[in-house]
């Protein structure tokens, strides 16, 4: 027994040596900042099979209702389609609908594309569309896409190829959701017969997209095959088969990508960048993703604004960007990153510039702590160990806190515990600060800021500010982009003042694919657009 254990340790050490030897270059804290890719050569060659890894692991289902998680949305984006899709700059482009009329503030008349069929050849009807949208709104299904329908009065078929949506109150966010899985269209008869098994490995789904489900071997892979009867004849996908694997361990992902066992994946572990950058295509793009600290407990140490300001002053923005994210991120002044300003850019830019530049200031933190009794109380900071960048950021914050005379106790969470933080008040009990990352579904800052209005499900701390609520409410009902941006920036300024959240950084989205492939530009919208249709072989 002792010999086998010693052999195991020796093997671990030898493995470490081998990995180190394989990796080129020595360690460096701050790699050169990567450049952002906005275009790549289009593919010219057909490829029989591309093996693509899903870093979050095997999806629990392929039901569009559950596609708010990356493991589901990454493959599903190539299978199921909504009424519209997002273009390269998040502009709404027609998909299963050709156009939408907006005769008054409360009505959207959607004109459906004619001649579209599901994979089984049956035509898409307005009934299928209405069924699909209403299905997701069923609370029993537990879909997080239910939120868009807060102001929905009705959705009905109003013609052979027409569906009409009526709202109770104006809501400028609604049209954005037409291009998200909230409006993915599934075949009514298929879904009804599958019942609760819809989307599972046993039953699969029935959609209209460029790829259809060929097989799902649980625990091993999901294979999609090209739908040659896809309605969009202007786009001819070059990849015939798309096989998804479920490697979650960052070291194993790196080894699989490096060896060519896997052809590509999104969200490549940062530690693997050095090793993969010259191997194939490691590309970066702007993201709609903020990493931030949420104040979860407004009654403890953080009830004093001085404590919150001190915490903000502790954050080593420069070190986090250069060392933790290796330059593939930017520090944030506000919760919503600049890439998510989908309109009113001048207004947002002016308001953003008016916010203090993020920089570590330990002296300021020490002064704030010295003047506040609350700031010396224990602060429990929860973060997930599943994301190395967040572990390192939390460790650095805790150390800076001790230097400033504060007591930040780290609470590491497994991936499961981290997920529970968003769903269960019990999981959040005893946590004062929560380090997490999220992303906006489309470039509309309101989608994030509305989470912090009084009574919102995601307003975990129970933050309540009448001025903030009024600004958000007004913005949601304001169609004019500049006027809306002004209302949103009002709310943004209130949030920055109250420090309900402490923004840290926006990290770039990244993708890796092997040298023989081309066509895929890294964009946050890969979660909702058929990204595999752009991929193919180089000339």
């Amino acid at each position: 027994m002792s010999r086998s254990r010693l052999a195991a340790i020796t093997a671990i050490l030898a493995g470490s040596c081998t990995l180190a030897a394989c990796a080129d270059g020595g360690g460096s804290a701050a790699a050169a900042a990567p450049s952002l890719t906005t275009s790549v050569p289009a593919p010219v060659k057909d490829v029989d099979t591309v093996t693509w890894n899903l870093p979050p692991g095997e999806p629990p289902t392929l039901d569009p209702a559950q596609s708010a998680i990356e493991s589901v949305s990454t493959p599903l984006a190539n299978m199921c389609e909504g009424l519209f899709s997002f273009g390269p700059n998040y502009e709404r482009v027609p998909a299963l609908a050709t156009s939408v009329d907006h005769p008054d503030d409360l009505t959207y008349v959607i004109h459906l594309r004619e001649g579209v069929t599901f994979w089984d050849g049956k035509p898409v009807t307005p009934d299928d569309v209405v069924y699909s949208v209403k299905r997701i709104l069923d609370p029993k299904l537990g879909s997080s896409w239910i939120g868009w329908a807060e102001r929905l009065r009705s959705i009905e078929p109003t013609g052979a190829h027409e569906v009409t949506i009526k709202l109770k109150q104006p809501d400028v966010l609604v049209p954005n959701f037409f291009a998200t899985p909230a409006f993915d269209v599934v075949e009514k008869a298929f879904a009804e017969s599958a019942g609760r098994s819809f989307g599972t490995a046993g039953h699969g789904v029935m959609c209209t997209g460029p790829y259809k489900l060929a097989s799902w071997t649980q625990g091993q892979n999901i294979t999609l095959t090209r739908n040659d009867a896809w309605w969009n004849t202007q786009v001819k996908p070059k990849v015939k088969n798309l096989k998804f694997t479920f490697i979650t361990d960052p070291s194993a992902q790196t080894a699989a990508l490096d060896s060519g066992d896997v052809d590509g994946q999104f969200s490549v572990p940062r530690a693997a960048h050095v090793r993969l950058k010259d191997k194939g295509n490691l590309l970066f793009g702007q993201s709609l993703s903020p990493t931030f600290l949420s104040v979860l407990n407004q009654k403890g140490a953080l009830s004093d604004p001085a404590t919150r300001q001190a915490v903000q002053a502790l954050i080593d923005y420069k070190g986090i960007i250069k060392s933790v994210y290796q330059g593939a991120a930017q520090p944030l002044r506000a919760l919503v990153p600049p890439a998510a300003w989908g309109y009113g850019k001048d207004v947002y830019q002016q308001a953003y510039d008016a916010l203090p530049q993020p920089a570590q200031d330990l002296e300021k933190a020490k002064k704030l702590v010295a003047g506040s009794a609350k700031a010396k109380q224990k602060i429990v900071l929860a973060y997930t160990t599943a994301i190395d960048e967040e572990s390192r950021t939390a460790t650095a914050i805790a150390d800076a806190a001790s230097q400033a005379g504060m007591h930040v106790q780290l609470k590491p969470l497994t991936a499961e515990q981290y997920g529970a933080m968003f769903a269960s008040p019990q999981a959040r009990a005893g946590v004062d600060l929560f380090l997490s990352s999220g992303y906006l579904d489309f470039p509309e800052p309101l989608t994030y800021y509305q989470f912090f209005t009084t009574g919102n499900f995601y307003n975990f701390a129970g933050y309540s500010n009448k001025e903030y609520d009024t600004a958000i409410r007004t913005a949601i009902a304001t169609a004019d982009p500049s006027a809306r941006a002004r209302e949103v920036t009002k709310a943004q300024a209130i949030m920055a003042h109250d420090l309900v959240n402490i923004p840290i950084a926006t990290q770039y989205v990244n993708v890796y694919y092997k040298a023989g492939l081309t066509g895929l530009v890294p964009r946050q919208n890969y979660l909702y657009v058929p990204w595999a249709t752009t991929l193919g072989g180089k000339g």
Partner: protein
Amino acid sequence: MTLTIPALRARAARRRRRRPLGVTLAVAFLLVAAVTGALAPLLAPHSPNATSLLDSLAPPGTAGHLLGTDSTGRDVLSRLMYGARLSLLAPLGVVLLSGILGTAAGLLAARAGGWVDAVLSRAMDIVFSFPSLLLAMLVVAVFGPGLTAPICALAVSYTPFLGRVVRSVALQEGARPYMESYRAMGFGELWTTVRHLLPNMTPVLLAQSALSFGYAMVDLASLSYLGLGVRPPAADWGSMISQAQSAILQGSPWSGLIPGLAVLLTVVSVNVLGEHIGGSIARRGEGT
């Protein structure tokens, strides 16, 4: 028997000559590790938790960081020194706890015999059949991360290792004439067991405990590696290896290799020592 000082010196020299070099090196390494851990606040060049993100992954030999820095810029040497405390004390806790439980169970089974022996032996078989690391992981899942729960769980898991050995030796010793003599003189079971049987078993207990220490260290390091051991930012060698995973991928293996080497050398040293003690007992047995 009375020995003169020159005679004592000559005997000590003979013993030193007989002691293999490996044992000497093992003892020296363990002493250095223990002293370094105990005096870490005096010896460590930096605070073990002091981060400096811009100085992360500095290689060994960097000015001010003899063994380099980890992925958050913490000094590897300082964390290694402080880490020695938990990395050595935690397995020691497992060994002490399992030693007490195992010795008590083994002696009770051997001395009481009958149904007590049968019940205790079967109980030890059941515990023995359950993988120690799995039990520790289950306990951590219930009680949360930290060292107390895994130490207790591993101690329970290791109890049969020692319990079986103690029972076996106690049965052999119990049948020896000196034990019969004490009984004939009217001394009670408890007195003869504690006063005479137990001291005679001490070398065996030491040898077995030394081996258990090595196992416990690897198990605890594995738990820390899995994020189930000490809570961050506290340093221990297992968690240092775990936190170095991303650094290894980036071509900076030292922040993981160095604590890995410390675990390896400690376990090897303890095993060498344990085997040496075991060998000495066997030789003494052959001599009698």
